[in-house]
């Protein structure tokens, strides 16, 4: 089919991060995009508007981000892989329906190309200020998966990963990019279609009259029927039992549902979490970073090594669930951990919690530019001193 031929643009490209993100989504089978224009994520919408008709999908520009997120959930329930892309203010507006997606176990992807906040903040400048909002943004207890790309290649790769995780765990997954990663142009290699791992949601193996839409299997994830397939099920944002029926008075139902929603992610943390270790084998000082500052950090540890400092980098690819195990193991090995991030203290709190007694040096950065390698190197030196 001609439309399939255009779904994976196999080859080497010089591409913008936002565009690579859109191409990753298309390559993994995303065929519905609902969004609202917002800097610095608009290029994802623009690419999707152009590409969706080419591959037989639908792009719709909704009236706001509340509607975008609701439409994405609707499309996913109708059986189509779906996503939206936004930045801080829009991400705030999506939170209630991200909670709905978690509650009704909806596979879907939300890309947040972070800019400076709060409020309208600095629309064209980078930030990493929405890490905690990604985790705690909607009310109630639920778990989220969030991935942090640090290159244009990863905008492609991690968007695919985000879709796969969302399908496996029936959970919303957030790609937490930043303005620099979103807007910069780099080389991207798009593999052959056959080399791209695509995972699809589990389908029910029971006949419709035996199907309970929220009855989990051993992995705590329920198989998912979609609208129009003859299962005729009901889904609600109210607390519900395994049949989907509301249970608004039962403490047991609340406990059972919420524990499972959280545990299906928590108990699979080891499977979900990805980090990248660089020069950590003998490291005495480590930098823990993610997104764009991790590139400055890489440069800083290399410079440090030239000076004879045993420095290494733990780059967090998965931010949520937090890589507790990796950070606490690292903390046992090194004298100090340096955390550069483009906010006034978010991931550093998680690092401090996991690192326990090991000193943590925080390098906040607010505004236009990411950390200079020399700034991170300075912190590494001071940690040695």
């Amino acid at each position: 089919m001609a439309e399939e031929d255009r779904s994976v643009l196999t080859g080497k490209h010089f591409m913008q991060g936002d565009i690579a993100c859109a191409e990753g989504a298309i390559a993994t089978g995303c065929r519905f995009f609902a969004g609202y224009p917002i800097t610095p994520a608009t290029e994802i919408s623009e690419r999707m508007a152009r590409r969706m008709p080419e591959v037989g999908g639908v792009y719709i520009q909704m009236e706001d981000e509340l509607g975008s997120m609701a439409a994405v959930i609707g499309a996913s329930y109708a059986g189509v892989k779906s996503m939206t892309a936004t930045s801080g203010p829009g991400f705030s507006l999506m939170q209630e329906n991200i909670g709905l997606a978690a509650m009704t176990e909806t596979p879907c992807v939300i890309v947040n190309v972070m800019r400076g906040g709060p409020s309208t903040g600095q629309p064209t400048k980078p930030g990493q200020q929405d890490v905690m909002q990604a985790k705690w943004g909607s009310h109630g207890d639920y778990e989220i998966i969030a991935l942090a790309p640090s290159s244009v290649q990863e905008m492609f790769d991690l968007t695919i990963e985000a879709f796969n995780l969302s399908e496996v765990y029936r959970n919303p997954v957030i790609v937490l990019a930043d303005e620099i990663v979103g807007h910069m142009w780099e080389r991207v290699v798009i593999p052959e279609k056959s080399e791209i791992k695509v995972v699809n949601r589990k389908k029910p193996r029971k006949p419709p009259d035996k199907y309970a839409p929220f009855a989990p299997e051993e992995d705590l994830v329920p198989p998912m029927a979609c609208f129009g397939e003859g299962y005729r099920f009901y889904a609600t944002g109210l607390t519900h039992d395994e049949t989907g029926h509301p249970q608004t008075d039962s403490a047991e139902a609340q406990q059972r549902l919420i524990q499972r929603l959280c545990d299906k992610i928590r108990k699979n943390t080891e499977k979900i979490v990805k980090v990248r270790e660089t020069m950590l084998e003998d490291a005495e000082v480590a930098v823990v970073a993610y997104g764009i500052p991790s590139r400055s950090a890489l440069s800083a540890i290399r410079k440090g090594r030239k000076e004879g400092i045993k420095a290494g980098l733990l780059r967090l690819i998965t931010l949520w669930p937090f890589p507790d195990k990796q950070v606490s193991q690292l903390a046992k090995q090194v004298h100090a951990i340096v955390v550069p991030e483009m906010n006034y203290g978010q991931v550093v709190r998680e690092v401090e919690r996991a690192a326990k007694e090991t000193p943590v040096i925080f390098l906040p950065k607010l505004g236009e530019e990411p950390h200079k390698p020399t700034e991170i190197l300075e912190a590494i030196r001071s940690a040695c001193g």
Partner: protein
Amino acid sequence: MSEESHPLENFLREGMIPHIWCEGCGNGIILNCFVRALNELNADINKVVVVSGIGCIGRLSGYTNTDSYHTTHGRAIAFATGVKLANPELKVVVISGDGDLFAIGGNHFIHAARRNMDIQVICANNFNYGMTGGQYGPTTPLEAWTTTTPYGNIEHSFNLVHLAAASGAVYVARWTSLHVRRMIESIKKALKKEGFSFIEVISPCPEIYGRRNKMPTGIDMMNWFKKASEIQNYSDPAKAEISPEKIVVGEFVDIEKLTYGHLVREMTSKVQKRMKEG
């Protein structure tokens, strides 16, 4: 002999009934008319999706034995938009209340109507927020008493059929819970029609709204509908008043216009044809 079953049993979800609605409430009448319309159309219930928002009538999607989804407050139309675009084979019906569709969800309503999105919207207008105990909303009449208008309502209300028509809906009707035969015919018409259709049903809420406004029983409210209703088919929806003396009901709009579904399919095939031709 087997036990006698209700002719509409197949349309109702086992285990969800009895419903939560109060005595005298009109929501059951809307549910009844809706499933009768499906039955009379011989609709394939495997291809019908019922979407609702939050509020008393928001529970309706749980009672229909279709695929159904109970969204967050105000977002039923936006959710339905995603469903319809992802699978155009489905008949997607939004059934929700006046506060859900026109206060918190008003933006989605006008834009879905503007796009002529292929969904059917049925609004139970009971003039207040019943679920939360009777606060005023966008359809509460001027001077009416509610728990948040303790000195009488000082806000003007929306004329929903006028709003729907002005926003671009291709089918617009208003009935009261008393007009069951006409309501069923209207729902059938809307279900058969492509594009954005809107049916407002003036629905009694004696327990929460009526008793604060000198209509304490369902019969009192139905008597008002009976006394005041005036059928004015294809009259100007801008003039379709709702007052103690007069409730203008009828079909106001029934026009043909390119639907969003049609336009998106046409664009997609154009783009794909162009690609094939290189």
